[in-house]
């Protein structure tokens, strides 16, 4: 759009997993679309210069690096993560750790790219099944480019893949360890990630060995690297950064919303944008915040919240992480492509003390310890020995990250808070306690992980568990359900009781399976794109 529109067909709040796919699809279809993003756009070279914790940039030391540090926490100190003064939650010490990136692409700036489909049984609590979403999964896989291999595993449906990068010696050792268990439900297969592995394009993977620090060439999918360039020049599309949505607008009690109010974070001015359709794709914690802050006389507890469902049943994947050095790889020089770090998906099942089985999924990661997190495990050695050990062990490190399903508990919830961010916008509070079952599951995943690593020649194993938000797979807070008393959105992702307000982010997933949710958010977004295109065209025809 040549200048800032005051009205559009569809306003999309957020440019992450859901918002990016939807904006691309609707703008390509010719609808007038405005994407509102509360942050700005990072410079194109951000992840080549200041944004990646690599030795070539200040030895991997940033303003918030601390000593001593937990090596498993190294992913969570990135300066892009919003702090409590500006994010949706105040992030109180010891509370739920809400990770949010307030930039164009949102969390996908630091996305690891794992793109797996939910299995048929993962849709048990949904108003539709896997087959309804299968074509959208395929369309998104083609759109974002997913590498992987067809394996014929019912619990992890195959998709449309480009070839993955070749396995490394460490991967082969883990594969052999899993095979040696002779468990039909345990698998170690090539990872499925939204990465351009084929050479020859500006976005081709250059094998940095890690994706979660931000990809310097846009090989890992994110909106600004892949789809935004295709629509940025269209008259029908506008990306409006620094636009923090403060509320959805409607006449009190009306079933139609009329648009959104947003704050220009650079000037402090408030603006209104009229829209035929409003889509909230801001994330499972930010979206409830907007709905709570949209309360009016008719709905004093927040928009789309007549059944008190908004914010309930917040989930994140409980995780277990184990790191070790494989002694069989000591003194090996690297002669292989390090690739994108985590080249394997691991799948298995654990058994709880009550005999109940549960599935889990995860990755084997073998990267380069160029930022020396391994020093924490060498504190007992004198400096000259550290140098020798570090050299001998440099290419031997393996980390397993294992995730199990979330548990939908009403008491784990996002609720209106008592704080405001630095722009004066009310924040939300998070009540979250780790369920006992999750603790047992995390322990069981550790037990399995130790077994695998020992078979692969592990030395000392450093293991941690966590379920305080560091899975960064937030779900459940605006759940999909045909029953308005059990969820917030219907099968079309439309808020119950409101004709033209939709939600499309992790919040709509009612029960978080063990599998990573991002590809499913994107598939839902693609499906919503089809629905909204038909809807807006039909309404335009009637109006004409």
């Amino acid at each position, binding site marked *: 759009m040549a200048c800032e529109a005051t009205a559009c067909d569809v306003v999309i709040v957020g440019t992450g997993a859901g918002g990016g796919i939807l904006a691309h699809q609707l703008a390509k279809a010719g609808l007038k679309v405005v994407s509102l993003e509360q942050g700005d756009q990072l410079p194109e070279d951000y992840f*080549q210069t200041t944004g990646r914790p690599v*030795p070539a940039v200040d030895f991997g030391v940033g*303003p918030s690096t601390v*000593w001593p540090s937990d090596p498993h926490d190294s992913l969570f100190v990135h300066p892009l993560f919003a702090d409590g003064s500006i994010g949706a939650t105040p992030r109180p010490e010891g509370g739920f750790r809400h990770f949010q990136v307030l930039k164009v692409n949102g969390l996908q700036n630091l996305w690891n790219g794992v793109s797996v489909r939910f299995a048929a049984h993962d849709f048990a609590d949904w108003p539709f099944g896997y087959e309804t979403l299968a074509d959208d999964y395929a369309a998104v896989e083609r759109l974002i480019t997913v590498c992987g291999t067809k394996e014929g595993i019912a619990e992890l449906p195959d998709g449309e893949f480009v070839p993955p990068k070749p396995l490394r010696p460490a991967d082969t050792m883990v594969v052999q360890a899993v095979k040696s268990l002779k468990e039909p439900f345990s698998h170690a297969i090539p990872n499925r990630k939204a990465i351009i592995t084929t050479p020859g394009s500006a976005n081709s993977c250059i094998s*940095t060995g890690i994706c979660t620090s931000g990809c310097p060439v846009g090989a890992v999918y994110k909106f600004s690297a892949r789809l935004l360039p295709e629509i940025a020049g269209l008259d029908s599309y506008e990306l409006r950064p620094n636009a923090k949505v403060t509320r959805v607008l409607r006449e009190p009690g009306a079933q139609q919303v009329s648009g959104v109010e947003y704050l220009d974070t650079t000037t402090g001015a408030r603006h209104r944008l009229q829209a035929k359709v409003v889509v909230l794709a801001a994330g499972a914690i930010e979206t409830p915040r907007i709905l709570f802050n949209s309360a009016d006389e008719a709905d004093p507890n927040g928009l789309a919240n007549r059944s008190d469902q908004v914010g309930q049943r917040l989930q994140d994947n409980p995780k277990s992480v184990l790191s070790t050095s494989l002694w069989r790889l000591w003194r090996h020089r690297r002669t292989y492509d390090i690739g994108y770090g985590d080249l394997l998906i691991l799948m298995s099942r654990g058994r709880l003390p009550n005999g109940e089985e549960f599935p889990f999924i995860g990755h084997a990661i073998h990267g380069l310890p160029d930022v020396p997190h391994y020093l924490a495990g060498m504190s007992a050695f004198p400096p000259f020995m550290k140098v020798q050990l*570090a050299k001998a062990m440099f290419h031997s490190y393996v980390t397993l990250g294992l995730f199990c399903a979330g548990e939908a508990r009403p008491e784990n919830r996002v609720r209106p808070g008592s704080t405001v961010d630095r722009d004066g916008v009310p924040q939300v509070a998070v009540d979250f306690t780790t369920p006992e079952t999750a603790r047992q599951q995390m322990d069981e995943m550790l037990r399995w992980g130790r077994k695998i690593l020992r078979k692969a020649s592990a030395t000392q194993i450093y293991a941690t568990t966590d379920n305080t938000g560091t899975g960064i797979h937030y779900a459940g807070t605006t759940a999909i359900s045909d029953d308005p008393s059990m969820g917030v959105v219907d099968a079309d992702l439309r808020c119950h009781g409101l004709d033209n307000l939709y939600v499309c982010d992790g919040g709509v997933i009612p029960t978080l399976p063990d599998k990573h949710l991002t590809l499913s958010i994107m598939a839902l977004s693609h499906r919503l794109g089809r629905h909204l295109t038909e809807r807006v065209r039909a309404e335009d025809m009637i109006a004409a």
Partner: protein
Amino acid sequence: MTQKISEERAEALLEAIVARSPYRRGLQPHLVDITRIALANAQLRTALCAIAARSRVATTGVVTKRELGAEGATLHAFLEHVFFASPGFLSTVGEWPIKGAPDGL
């Protein structure tokens, strides 16, 4: 509150601390960067301010273990990190330059 220390004072202090380090040969070529990075880091800046308050490095040119105090461990961990992340060390394991970073492209 952000604690303040001048760049010159920080560099003199870090030069003296590096001189005590078993990794000093690998660190000394990076002293300018070490100072800049330490001043930009919240924990290190606080530690440097605390050490500066009890140090006589300006007159003696050295810093004692007593002057380093509890903050000495933080500075030691930082310098050790820098050594093992330095081009000098990474070259010995065949991993310099780094792919995707300014010096590695």
